[in-house]
């Protein structure tokens, strides 16, 4: 359910959708003649239309990838910061050589447009679940930047919404095959033998933020930027896109991000789990570093694989001493070997292909959720500083009431998924 205190009334929704439905019927007025039938470009009726939810730095970057596809047409952009909205609109209009791109502050105004098929979600992480679930409810297919979620239960709600409405929903972890594809394929073909250990080198968890602040500049709708997150005073270092855990951007802070654990975890844990065919399940034990037996945060899987969060060792390093596992050669299931990007143009092309064919994408939300869960489990173990048991089927910590509390965060105001 959306924030009802600011909800779009049925009347307004009908008015909006009615207006756009009318526009859609008169296709040439919606898509200008300059692009109608352009060489190598499908007719407007055959293009996938898209709205962009969160058009800051990353949003614009991913949007450019979609803009370069002749079978995609970006119709609308949304951001709570005017500068981002203006930049994105200018970019889209420049690409299509018209002024047709509509810009919005409230993403829900994009969702009620019936002429928009898909949405790209590139907001900070604390908005992903709300936007994705609402998009599914409104019949949109979703390409959501990684990491998928801010909490474990949010991720499950996103998968449930995708399934409930038969929506094609992809997470944007392009490096799983893009950067790590070679090693993933070698592991999947059994060239390394039975994997015993994997070292994943990424940064650590986020921190709580008590930065001081004051009034937000007029171009920022600060309350809307916070959305479901706890109220806090405006500070540019809370909301900046500055990368890393240095305290200069939103990825540093617990209320808006899972830190580098989730941000890079989406790529590197994603690659490790994909390679081993473990991205439809989860670990059963998580042990934080204890200075003795466990140098690194350790995930232990039912099949005996040890996955380490090793912030200063390796990259995505698989350990499989073949000589020790003679006779235990890995026989990858066929479906694992068949999983690859579909269509052309990497993970974005894969998403568009899935929208057209209604076949689930390579980074379907279920896989992305399982990967994000591994990242969240790591953050919870770092927070509680003790070993945890995890049930990957029920997605709960058996008999551990304190850890179970951390699977979820109450959302502010009337925001909910």
């Amino acid at each position: 359910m959306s924030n009802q205190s600011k909800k779009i009334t049925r009347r307004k929704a009908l008015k909006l959708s009615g207006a756009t439905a009318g526009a859609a019927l008169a296709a040439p007025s919606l898509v200008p003649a300059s692009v109608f039938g352009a060489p190598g470009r499908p007719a407007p009726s055959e293009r996938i239309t898209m709205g962009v939810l969160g058009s800051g730095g990353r949003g614009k970057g991913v949007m450019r990838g979609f803009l370069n596809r002749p079978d995609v047409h970006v119709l609308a952009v949304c951001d709570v910061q005017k500068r981002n909205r203006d930049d994105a609109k200018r970019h889209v209009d420049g690409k299509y050589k018209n002024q047709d791109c509509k810009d919005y502050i409230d993403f829900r105004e994009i969702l009620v447009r019936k002429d928009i098929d898909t949405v790209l979600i590139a907001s900070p992480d604390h908005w992903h679940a709300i936007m994705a679930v609402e998009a599914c409810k409104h019949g949109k297919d979703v390409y959501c930047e990684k990491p998928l979620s801010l909490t474990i239960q949010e991720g499950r709600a996103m998968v449930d919404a995708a399934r409930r409405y038969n929506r094609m929903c992809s997470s944007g972890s392009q490096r799983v095959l893009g950067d790590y594809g070679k090693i993933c394929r070698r592991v999947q073909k059994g060239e390394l033998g039975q994997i015993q250990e994997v070292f994943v080198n990424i940064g650590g968890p986020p921190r709580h933020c008590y930065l001081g602040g004051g009034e937000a500049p007029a171009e920022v709708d600060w309350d809307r930027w916070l959305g479901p997150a706890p109220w806090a005073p405006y500070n540019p270092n809370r909301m900046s896109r500055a990368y890393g855990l240095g305290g200069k951007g939103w990825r540093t802070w617990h209320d808006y991000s899972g830190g580098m654990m989730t941000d890079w975890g989406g790529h590197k844990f994603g690659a490790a789990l994909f390679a081993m065919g473990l991205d439809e399940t989860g670990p059963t034990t998580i042990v934080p570093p204890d200075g003795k037996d466990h140098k690194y945060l350790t995930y232990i899987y039912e099949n005996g694989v040890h996955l380490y969060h090793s912030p200063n060792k390796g990259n995505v390093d698989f350990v499989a001493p073949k000589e020790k596992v003679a006779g235990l050669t890995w026989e990858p299931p066929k479906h694992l070997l068949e999983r690859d990007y579909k269509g052309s143009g990497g993970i974005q092309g894969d998403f568009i292909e899935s929208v057209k064919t209604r076949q689930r994408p390579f980074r379907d939300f279920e896989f992305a959720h399982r990967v994000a869960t591994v990242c969240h489990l790591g953050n919870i173990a770092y927070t509680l500083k003790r070993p945890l048991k995890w049930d990957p089927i029920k997605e709960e910590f058996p008999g551990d009431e304190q850890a179970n509390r951390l699977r979820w965060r109450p959302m502010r105001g009337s925001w909910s998924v």
Partner: protein
Amino acid sequence: MVNNLNIQPSAVEEKVDPIAAAFAALKKFDWGQDTGAIKTLDEAVVKAADDKAKKALSAQFCQVLDGEASYAAKDYACRQLSLVGGDECVKSLAKLLPSEKTCHGARYALERFGSSSAIQALGKALKEAGKGVRLSLVNSLKNIDSNEAHKVLAHAAVSFVDSDAEASEAATLALCHFEDGQSLAQAYIDKKISEDPINFADAVLRNSEVLLAKGKEKEAKKLLRMIKKGEFSENAKQAATSKLKALKKK
């Protein structure tokens, strides 16, 4: 040896309790201050392994909530209580629920407790608080998966029909998380749900999933057919239709 510095040995040896010092710092803490002085509390919360230790810490966090501490300090206390707190903290947290400003901090802890006394506090606030916080309280009750929360929501759905239609509708839709499709269907039939067909359809679809998980296929199908034949979005109708088809195949 002569003590030229004239330092009294007892003064040197006097130990300051680091936890007490950190709580004293927390009571004066505000946005923008160095968190170093309260960092000891982060560690104490994580180390509090047994109930006794947790209750001792919780009592002190409640003192912060009951006093004149800043918003930032109370926010911090609520976050820590969400990890170590329990029923003994409900009274202090409940006082924060009626205010739009402090409601979320209290919910942050109470929703995670999910206990009977937490539900009662949320239910009481739902009755007494103003419109500004009702929807958030409904959401907290929705997220606590228990029959007791269900009863509070069912009561709110009925009692707010005339005075706060939005809260009544939200409570009705929240019931979809529980095994009660009938009240949803009735609400639709009675035209109580009029503003938001997308959220209503979503609630019914979710409810059908709950019913199916409980083995109540007949009841689930009834709800799915209602969506299929009703005035809902094509997206919702298709979702209901494909689910009905899948059930038929099964």
